[in-house]
């Protein structure tokens, strides 16, 4: 005979934990556990959370849960409320501040506390201390999350503002930008900051494989589907279940596969190659391309419906030449990275070298800059990197496409002086080599002021600075 609900006591008003003998089980867990009622008051905490927060179970019963864990969960709205409404478990990353005034990175998993009657009594919040994971990530990559993406330029600031918004939703994302602008990093950062971060992030290059192989790579195949298919293959869509599938070079995706991708996006299910049974997946799609998809649609090589389906959220990454403010930041970052990795005692670049790099257009963008710095740090035998330590291709470099440098070509003289040649004017002129960042900054200010006819507000806007910062810099460089 099935037990009556009243016999289990779940419908009574006595605390839930009196009915469930789970306290010792909770105490054995190496995760912080917090039970809160519907009013978000603490029902109980486990021993691990006592250690993590510095509060004992007895003193916090009845206290608002957020006062005990001191998390940044509230900056995500009311996740407990959302869990209670949706009845779905939610995973979020954030941090807490404990009684020792230490900020601890934590992964929160919030689940509804449901009685057998179906009534929601509150929520269970699991807190996983991920400090070690974060430390490890920092050691491996130097940075974590989207800290890997650097930039102070106004265009990058716009991207940084959009990233958290993009991470919060489950909509498809289209990342566009020239090669080497960091599309992969942005895609990974979105995944890491999203609720799917615990699940896989899988990257597939749509331009790297022929159509048939790509179909099998994406959707998998069943045994015997084609010659050589001697066993079932799950495919990337299935492997990315719960997580994110990053389709890079989506502009190179063959038309027949575009239809199949569109179907998966709409129905969340597909047939593996040679299979007769549909497979359901829960995958978020992030696509990237260096091509102009709008133009491909006009040419008829990219499906318009797929374009609109992918283009829900659009991030366009600027090329390095449009991120003037970031050039020195990135140069310095890569220099430090390679100096540390290669255990070199190199102190920096000399002025001629900086000038040469500043006037280069970097068609390969940040990837190219990184490679150049790696080459230079490797090649440089002493403390200062000079132009001869740069790749030879750079020394006979192509003209920069920026208006000021578009018609110039640089030649390096034996004395280290840079001579800019203008094809239109055979008479070469010597560029004064700046002595350092100060000079470059001064030049930037003057250019901005000239461009805006002396209007300081607009010049500040152009530089991505506040008016007061520009004023300070003008004063500093004695330009007033």
């Amino acid at each position, binding site marked *: 005979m099935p037990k009556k609900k009243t016999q289990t006591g779940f419908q009574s008003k006595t*605390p839930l934990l009196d009915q469930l003998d789970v306290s010792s089980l909770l105490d054995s867990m190496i995760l912080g556990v917090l039970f809160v009622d519907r009013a978000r008051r603490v029902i109980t905490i486990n021993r691990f959370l006592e250690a993590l927060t510095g509060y004992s179970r007895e003193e*916090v019963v009845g206290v*608002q849960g957020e006062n005990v864990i001191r998390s940044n969960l509230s900056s995500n709205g009311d996740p407990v409320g959302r869990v209670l409404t949706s009845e779905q478990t939610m995973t979020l990353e954030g941090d807490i*501040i404990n009684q020792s*005034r230490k900020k601890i990175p934590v992964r929160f998993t919030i689940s509804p506390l449901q009685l057998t009657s179906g009534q929601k009594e509150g929520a269970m919040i699991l807190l996983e201390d991920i400090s070690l994971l974060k430390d490890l990530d920092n050691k491996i990559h130097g940075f974590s999350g989207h800290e890997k993406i650097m930039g102070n330029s106004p265009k990058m600031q716009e991207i940084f503002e959009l990233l958290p918004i993009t991470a919060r939703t489950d909509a498809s994302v289209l990342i566009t930008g020239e090669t080497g602008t960091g599309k992969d990093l942005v895609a990974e950062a979105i995944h890491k900051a999203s609720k799917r971060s615990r699940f896989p992030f899988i990257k597939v290059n749509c331009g790297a494989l022929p159509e048939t192989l790509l179909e099998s790579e994406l959707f998998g195949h069943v045994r015997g589907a084609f010659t050589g298919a001697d066993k079932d293959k799950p495919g990337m869509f299935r492997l990315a279940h719960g997580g994110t599938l990053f389709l890079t070079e989506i502009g190179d995706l063959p038309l027949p596969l575009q239809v199949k991708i569109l179907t998966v996006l709409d129905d969340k299910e597909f047939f593996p190659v040679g299979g007769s049974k549909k497979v359901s997946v829960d995958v978020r799609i992030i696509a990237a391309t260096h091509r102009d998809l709008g133009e491909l649609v006009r040419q008829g090589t990219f499906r318009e419906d797929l374009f609109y389906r992918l283009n829900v959220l659009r991030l366009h990454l600027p090329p390095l030449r449009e991120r003037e403010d970031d050039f020195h930041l990135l140069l310095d970052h890569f220099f430090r990275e390679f100096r540390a990795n290669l255990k070199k005692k190199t102190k920096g670049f000399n002025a001629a070298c900086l000038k040469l790099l500043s006037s280069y257009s970097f068609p390969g963008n940040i990837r190219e800059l990184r490679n150049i710095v790696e080459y230079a740090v490797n090649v440089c035998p002493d403390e200062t990197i000079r132009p001869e330590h740069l790749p030879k291709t750079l020394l006979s470099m192509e003209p920069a496409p920026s208006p000021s440098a578009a018609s110039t070509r640089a030649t390096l003289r034996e004395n280290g002086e840079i001579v800019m040649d203008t094809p239109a004017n055979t008479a070469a002129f010597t560029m004064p080599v700046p002595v350092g960042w100060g000079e470059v900054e001064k030049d930037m200010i003057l250019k901005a002021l000239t461009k805006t006819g002396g209007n300081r507000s607009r010049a500040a806007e152009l530089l991505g600075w506040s008016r007061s910062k520009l004023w300070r810099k003008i004063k500093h460089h004695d330009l007033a």
Partner: protein
Amino acid sequence: MKILITIQKDEVAPRFDLTSEILITETQEGKITGEPRIILLPGTSGEDICGLAIKENVALLICGGIEDTHYQYLKWKKIKVVDGVIGPHEQALHSAMTNDLRPGAILPGASIHGEKP
């Protein structure tokens, strides 16, 4: 003595760095002098609250969880900090005026009207 409390509705805010509202009040010989001021901050920033506390010549700051960097900075600026306080800010203020407020205090009104779930 000028007292600053980081608040969230009627309670001491759980996190110093995520506080968007503060209460500043002046006390003399255990009594409140003048009208307490509630200031809504344009954003949430621990640095901004530190700056404000210095600008306002605050002598005592009462808050919830605070990072050690902010705590040490305020201490260096000769501001006494009573942190980790849980409960209604009014009770926190009165306890502070009678010199009874301790770091990490869970005030009687912290659980809703002292009621246990």
